[in-house]
């Protein structure tokens, strides 16, 4: 069994010591610090990115709540404006309507007065025409001049009897 050939032990041990110590020095001084550095860098970069993401998320949430608040405020003021406008319009409309109604009432009164005047005038015209016509008819039939006042009272009597 080659493992029990003792004269091979010294060279094996010597070269094991040389190679193992060399590998240890290279790992300890060069390889491991470099790997550790890269891993740490990545870790810190990741942490930094996560922190940044957290910060941005917080900012976004703040902005969102601010926007919500502004939206609510705007909605409230819009309601106010609409209510104001409605009240103002109603008031204006009412005023206008009152004005128009008053105007219409005035005009109606004037028109009624005018109609009454026209009616009286027309009635007066009818009486004069009736008196003239009656005088003429009586004069022609009887050949006598009739007194104007007598004709007038007769016409009045007839008209009041008709009216």
């Amino acid at each position, binding site marked *: 069994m080659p*493992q029990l050939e003792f004269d091979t*032990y010294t*060279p*094996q041990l010597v*070269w*094991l010591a040389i190679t*193992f110590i060399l590998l240890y020095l*290279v790992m300890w001084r*060069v390889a491991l610090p470099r790997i550790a550095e*890269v891993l740490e860098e990545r870790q810190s970069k990741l942490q930094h990115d996560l922190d940044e993401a957290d910060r941005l998320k917080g900012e976004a949430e703040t902005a969102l709540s601010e926007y919500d608040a502004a939206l609510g405020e705007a909605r409230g003021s819009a309601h106010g404006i609409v209510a104001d406008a409605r009240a103002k319009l109603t008031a204006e409309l009412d005023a206008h309507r009152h004005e128009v109604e008053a105007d219409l009432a005035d005009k109606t009164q004037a028109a009624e007065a005018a109609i009454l005047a026209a009616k009286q005038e027309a009635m007066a015209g009818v009486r004069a025409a009736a008196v003239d016509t009656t005088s003429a008819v009586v004069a022609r039939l009887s050949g006598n001049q009739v007194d104007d006042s007598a004709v007038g009272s007769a016409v009045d009597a007839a008209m009041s009897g008709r009216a």
Partner: protein
Amino acid sequence: MAESTEQHGPLEQFEVKSLVDMHLGGLDVSFTNSSAWMVLAIILATLLLTLSMSGRAMVPGRWQSISELCYEFVANMVRDNVGSEGRKYFPFIFTLFVFILFSNILGMLPYSFTTTSHIIVTFALAFVVFLGVTVIGFLKNGLGFLKLFVPSGVPVALMPLLVVIEVISYFIRPISLSVRLFANMMAGHTMLKVFGGFVISLGLLLGWAPLVFLVALTGLEIGIAFLQAYVFTILTCLYLHDALHPGH
């Protein structure tokens, strides 16, 4: 070193052959095939773990991922099994893991030499761990380290027996640690060679059956190469934990 009848035996692969004879003050420091594979292992490990990180990419590529995976694998092992005081010993434990892993994996190449299939290599590694852990235990805890051998909550009558058992199990650690790795590597590679021999001797007609088994066994052996590197390293972590926290 080997007899002629053993020229193509399953144990031939474990022979240590000198490539360059060297002596230093009566000490045989010849550069052997074992030395060559150790040197290759540390060169490949160094290349993988330094070149792959030269890009220092924020999003790692394949090779960089392998390096980072190795690092985090061992770092987590140390953190979980030793605790935060284990950070100081992390470079050593990482080197141990990488050295054993590369030796085991390189041993899977055809015609290669598995440096960890020699008991003297695994024992040297285990003994360094044992010695280091014992020294750290006494440096950190003084004589309080001896509490490791006195289990708490045990009847006084049983105490002497248990202390003896604890002491024995403590001193067996380097042996069990080294034999586990060496035996796994040696048995696996011997089996591969034996079944390889069957494939040839049974010929084209019947050789397929052992060949199929050989393929499956090769997959298993690659798994064992990883597993034994892991087991050696995690046991080192547990021993280190004992040294830092000797109270049961």
